[in-house]
């Protein structure tokens, strides 16, 4: 099947789904109080649009800060842990456990400690993003083929050349995979804190719209965040492919 045909079928399926949904509401089969029709969701975009975009900006600002911190710390720790064998053996069970455990359990404590402003959102975003990035990078470094390293060294490569020509290209895919995964986790962390702590931003907007039973606006805001997130991840994937060519 050609890529074009697949694209067309994908778009067609989504269009059919939206049409069925619209029909279900119009014929009274679904209650618009809970499941608003797509047309009313689009209309709701206009009413909450400006405010939602401003709050989205705030959420994105926090996410970006958390992301930069999570990537810096995660990649740094990952390179270190992946590079030193003993460290890797000692630390990795803890890392895996911390990655898998529900971090929501420490969220109340983070709010108590850091107050009710942007800080807890950033801290929790970093906490969410750090472990997947660190684990992916550490795994990537561990899996690097040692042979080219030995060959380059025995042929007299300086450590800078070694790093630039052998290690960096070999580790890059893992770093990029971590960066792609990390952004979703950071955004998730920031949104959870905004929802739980009632902190200005998209998460708080979503919860208040739900509490006010404004379903069309709620769906519009949800769609906005979702589309943005998918867009960012697809963008990073594109970048990944670009860099793949460069390698």
């Amino acid at each position: 099947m050609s890529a074009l045909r697949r694209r067309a079928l994908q778009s067609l399926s989504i269009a059919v789904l939206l049409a069925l949904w619209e029909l279900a509401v119009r014929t009274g089969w679904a209650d618009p109080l809970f499941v608003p029709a797509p047309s009313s969701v689009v209309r709701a975009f206009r009413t909450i649009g400006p405010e939602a975009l401003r709050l989205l900006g705030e959420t994105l600002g926090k996410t970006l800060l958390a992301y930069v911190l999570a990537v810096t710390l995660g990649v740094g720790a990952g390179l270190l842990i992946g590079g030193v064998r003993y460290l890797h053996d000692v630390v990795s069970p803890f890392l895996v456990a911390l990655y898998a455990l529900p971090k929501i359990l420490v969220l109340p404590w983070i709010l108590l400690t850091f107050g009710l402003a942007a800080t807890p959102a950033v801290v929790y975003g970093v906490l969410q993003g750090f472990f997947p990035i660190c684990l992916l990078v550490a795994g990537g470094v561990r899996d690097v083929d040692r042979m080219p390293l030995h060959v380059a060294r025995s042929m007299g490569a300086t450590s800078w050349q070694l790093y630039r020509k052998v290690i960096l290209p070999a580790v890059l895919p893992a770093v990029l995979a971590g960066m792609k995964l990390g952004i979703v986790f950071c955004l998730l962390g920031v949104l959870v804190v905004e929802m739980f702590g009632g902190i200005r931003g998209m998460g708080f907007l979503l919860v208040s719209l739900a509490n006010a039973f404004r379903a069309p606006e709620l769906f519009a805001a949800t769609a906005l965040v979702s589309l943005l997130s998918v867009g960012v991840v697809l963008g990073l994937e594109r970048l990944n492919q670009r860099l793949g060519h460069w390698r």
Partner: protein
Amino acid sequence: MRRVVLGRVLLLAGLLGLWELWARHGDPLLYVPPSRVVPALARLLRLEAYPTLPAHVGLTAFEVLVAYALVVALGLSLGFALGLPRHVGAIYEPILAACYAIPSVVWYPSLMLFFGLGPASKIAFGVLLGFFPVVLAVLAGLRAVEPHLLTVSRALGAKPAACFVKVVLPAITATLVAGLRAGLALTVVGVLVGEILGARRGLGYLINYTYGFFRTADYAALALLALVLVLLVDGIAAWTESRARRWTEGAA
């Protein structure tokens, strides 16, 4: 090996010691040293602190159980429905993968609106989180089935059902069981997140309640209890996974 174990023990002891030291010098409302968490945990487990604890834990366990049953049923049926016909998976998998890139918690307010504040919205959120790894695992497993094996067994006259049981199922079991385990972990996370974001009963609610009243020692003890329960569930899942893996290797 011994040095590694020693390193782990030292690391853990160092972290606990640091926590103890830090907490003793910090605000006692915010920081609880381990030496105060242990008695709180004992009181909690003897049901002196919160006599209704079993009911809360029971409700959370019930929500996880129902959500996971739905995850398995929905995940497997959708996975096979998309993966078994030849081209359907190629069309819909990218859409599913794109949905995976959405931070799941954005759906929670909509679920709360739809299902209310009771257990239904927690179950729904657990299903939403756990569902994706299962579907994606079925699709990944089916894609990795050797087409030759299917062609050969069909040529030898195996019926579709026999092909499925004898060829497809053993080939995908390892991937599938790993996906089911990841789905279980995420289902638990979903239920807990749902309860903490807003509930009237359940373990998450109790955690929220203790934090709201600055009973930090009780909060830490409850969080610890929740962690142990999560680890227990995942341990059972890991054991099942290794059993299933041995079964497929034995069959191959």
